[in-house]
């Protein structure tokens, strides 16, 4: 990623957008000098909470037997998370208590990913690693607590010592299990979301700025190449929408799988 931010050799040449372009100037200058002011990213996160909360409360409030359009859309969305992710993965017995978490996670991530697509916002807030870390941490502590509640402190043995492994290689397997489950899992969980959003957005930024440079400033034969980057950029933009929805689904699905793993009777 850093390699994209090549220093400009001269003022006339093309300057690719850098990662720093993802961090826009602060809206409120409070703490701005240390880069910790209230920025667009935080505003969009709070806005997403208001949007999601408003939409679903409005959709659910009437609770009619025969739903109207708004209620139908709300119920359809709620059903998707509740049944396709919650019930199918966690199982009929336990899924109800996790429906709120899965539902909130899915739509929180979905809207925050889609900010990258929505005009004027155009910043997937989950491309800031802090947001991804925070969400993955919530899930991390959730499934550990669920496991301890279900199995007691023996949960850690349950989670790291698989049955049916020969004694000779058991220590190695346990070590691998500890690393993969308790160390790598939250990192991959957060970085998967963060990296796809960041890279997708960088590609679109690159295509956009490249197109602008080629069409406006390039000379001669290079100019028509701008059409190629424009078409490619639009294609990537549409592809990004798919990725944004898909990553919200993947993150929520993995959450359900982790919780199911903590609730399982057998390793």
């Amino acid at each position, binding site marked *: *990623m*850093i390699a994209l*931010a090549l*220093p*400009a050799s001269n003022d006339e040449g093309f*300057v690719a957008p*850098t*990662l*720093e372009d993802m*961090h826009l100037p602060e809206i409120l200058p409070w*703490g701005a000098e240390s*880069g*910790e*002011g*209230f*920025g667009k*990213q*935080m505003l969009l*996160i*709070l806005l*997403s*909470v208001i949007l*999601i*909360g408003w939409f*679903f*409360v409005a959709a*659910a*409030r009437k*609770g*009619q*037997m025969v*739903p109207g359009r708004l209620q139908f859309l*709300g*119920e359809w969305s*709620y059903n998707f998370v*509740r049944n396709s992710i919650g019930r199918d993965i966690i199982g009929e017995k336990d899924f109800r208590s996790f*429906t*709120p*978490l899965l*539902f*909130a996670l899915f*739509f*929180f991530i979905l809207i925050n990913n889609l900010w990258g697509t929505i005009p004027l916002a155009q910043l997937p807030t989950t491309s*800031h*690693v*802090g*947001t991804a*870390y*925070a*969400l993955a941490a*919530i899930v991390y502590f959730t499934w550990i607590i669920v496991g301890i509640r279900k199995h007691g402190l023996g949960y850690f043995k349950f989670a790291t010592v698989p049955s049916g492994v020969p004694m000779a290689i058991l220590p190695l397997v346990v070590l691998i299990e500890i690393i993969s489950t308790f160390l790598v899992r939250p990192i991959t969980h957060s*970085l998967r979301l*963060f990296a796809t959003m*960041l890279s997708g957005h960088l590609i679109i930024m690159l295509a956009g700025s490249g197109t602008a440079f080629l069409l406006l400033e390039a000379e001669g034969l290079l100019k028509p190449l701008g059409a190629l980057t424009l078409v490619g950029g639009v294609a990537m933009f549409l592809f990004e929408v798919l990725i944004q929805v898909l990553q919200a689904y993947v993150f929520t699905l993995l959450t359900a799988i982790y919780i199911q793993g903590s609730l399982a009777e057998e390793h």
Partner: protein
Amino acid sequence: MNEALILAAEEGANPLIPNIWEILVTLLGFAVLMYIVVKFVVPMFEKTYAERTEAIEGGLKKAEAAQAEASAALDEYKQQLIDARTEANRIREEARAEGAQILADLKAKAGAESARIMEQSHVAIEAERQAAVVSLRSEVGTLATELAGKIVGESLADDARAARVVDRFLDDLETQNAGAVK
């Protein structure tokens, strides 16, 4: 895009180092969203589901009940129809039997009546005949006695004798008659 920003990007912006405020804002935002979802959204949706399920199941039960009621009513009507037919047959049968009975009774009564009338007339005829015989006998006796008295010139005042004579005479007469008839 200037030199300073690019340098900053090269030096400082390790994308894996989080901004602590972004973490806090995310946690806060998500906590608020969770509150809204747990407190309002999920209960309202689940309530609607439960009500809808109940409504549908209630409707099905109601329909089943109506169906059962309808088939029960149909059975009842069929039973009533069968009963009514049986009743009608029975009444017709009874009427026929009664009619036959009445006819037989009337015949018997008529027979008895005619027998009685015949009997009565026999008795009356017999009585009349008897009366006629008695009156005839006394008249004929008187006539014969008078006649005989005239003929024999002999007073037959002695009634006992006269009666004997007359009786004998009449017996003879009857014997003769009987012989003549034979």
